[in-house]
């Protein structure tokens, strides 16, 4: 087991950031940690790396108890921070070499490895440029590259695609998939469901500091297999109608986004007349049913739409 987390509790004042949180990550696994902002993802990551102490429970990484002081653990982890943590006045090469040097790499190793990493992140032609001139996507790639310099066994990526263009996002997702094929263990957090769907072999959905559900994507979808999902577009939706729909006992969950009600009804759509009657005065534009995906799993299990929370 690469990461073993058992019943971890972490409080910040009155806020319970991790609440009996447990997680196991096996070697070579790409685990997607999914949850809205404030779910506890970053706290979980910081606890795994040893940046914050936990109040209760147990964390071991590479089979070693994580007490925050163990350099052996740190040496084997690559951490991609959510915010850009590169030096903008320095060149890409200088950034890569500096972060590599923090892991005790020699001058020769730094020179060789920085070239390798530059190729991996697609910046081989821009190595001598100051990073302040880079686009957002290039900075993100360099941010990842800096954590790859010491060739870590475990890479922890905390929302690595925040604020970048689709092209760079795809590049990063492809790159994560490539890393996974080489057997690198990856912990990938995001509030973009499609990213987690694309890269993760296992998914852990967390909310309010604890695990809501975990498993492979098919396993998670199977949990809500019997539910019917309806998407009803209206001209002008309202919170009042949302409450009214939630009050219908046969409805399991309702979410509202951009004048579209997403309604989950267990066991198939048998109460469509009731639903239509409730919202008919809002002028229904379109009605659709859909196959459940990870977003629906999240909605069903948490009662929230992930993107709204982000």
């Amino acid at each position, binding site marked *: 087991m690469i990461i073993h987390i058992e019943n971890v509790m972490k409080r910040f004042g009155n806020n319970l950031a991790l609440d009996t949180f447990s997680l196991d990550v096996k070697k070579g696994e790409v685990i997607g940690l999914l949850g809205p902002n404030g779910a506890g993802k970053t706290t979980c990551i*910081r606890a795994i*790396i040893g*940046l914050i102490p936990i109040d209760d429970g147990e964390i071991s990484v590479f089979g070693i108890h994580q007490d925050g002081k163990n*350099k*052996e653990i*740190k*040496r084997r*982890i690559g*951490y991609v*921070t*959510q*915010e*850009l*943590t590169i*030096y903008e*006045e*320095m060149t890409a090469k*200088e950034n890569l*070499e*500096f*972060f590599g*040097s*923090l*892991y*005790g790499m020699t001058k020769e190793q730094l020179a060789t490895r920085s070239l390798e990493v530059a190729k991996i992140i697609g910046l081989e032609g821009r190595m001598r440029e100051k990073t302040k001139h880079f686009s957002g996507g290039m900075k993100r790639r360099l941010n990842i590259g*800096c*954590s790859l310099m010491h060739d870590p066994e475990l890479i922890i990526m905390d929302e690595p695609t925040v604020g970048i263009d689709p092209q760079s996002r795809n590049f990063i997702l492809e790159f994560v998939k490539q890393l996974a094929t080489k057997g690198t263990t990856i912990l990938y957090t995001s509030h973009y469901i499609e990213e987690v769907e694309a890269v993760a072999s296992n998914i852990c959905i967390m909310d309010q500091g604890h695990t809501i559900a975990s498993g492979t994507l098919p396993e998670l979808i199977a949990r809500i297999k019997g539910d019917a999902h309806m998407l009803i577009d209206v001209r002008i939706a309202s919170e009042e109608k949302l409450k009214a729909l939630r009050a219908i006992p046969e409805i399991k969950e309702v979410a509202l986004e951009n004048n579209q009600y997403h309604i989950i009804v267990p066991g198939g759509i048998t109460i469509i007349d009731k639903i239509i009657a409730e919202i008919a005065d809002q002028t229904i534009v379109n009605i659709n049913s859909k196959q459940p995906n990870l977003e629906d799993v999240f909605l069903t299990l948490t009662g929230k739409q992930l993107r709204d929370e982000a």
Partner: protein
Amino acid sequence: MFKFNLIRSSRDIFAHLILIAFPVLLIAFFNFIFKGTAIVSEINGTPIPYLTVLTVGFALTFQIYGSSLSFETMGSDFFSPMRDRLLASPCNPRSLIISILTTSMLVSFLQTIVVLLFAKFVLGALLPSLPFVMAVMILSIVFHQLLGSVIMLASGSVKTANIIVSTYGSIAPMLAGLYFPLPDTPVILAVEKYLTPMALGKTAILGILENNTGQALAGTLPLLALTIGLFFLMRPMIGKVTS
């Protein structure tokens, strides 16, 4: 790490412009106005050219502002998301901070040298006993780099440190009689010579220039003691930030 931080400091062109061009301009400006004026030192009556006093005074003054080199770098590393990335590595964070401090001291020293060389070779300032003068200058640099860092680490804010250092940097030269002559009373004279670390540095250097060992030591020893004090104060603060 040292090389990286040195390159990093050296690329802060704006800081170099302020810390080199400003004192050079001020020395040149005041020298132009008071050219040829010789003042009688308050210490033992030995006349020292005004240009020399200006050079020493402004070099010391801008070392105060130069303390931002270390605390701003520390702030951007340890009071920002960068902290997590650095602390996630096996590298000892204390060595990172020491590296920032030493490179900032080196850059501040190089800036001081440029100012002194300009004053000596372009304006013709008399600077005898240069090795001893430089020794006090180095002590002053170390003191002010530590001072700025301690203020920043204690307050947890680069902005607060900047305000405090800038205020001190504005008041200290006035209290040391750099901008205008102060009344010749025993109390004011004591303030002028000993109240601020900058004044201690100036007193020590003027003592060296006059071959007045007692005066040189009276400035140097308290400054040394204060520097050692800051060093010991710095240790637990680094621990607080990096743990």
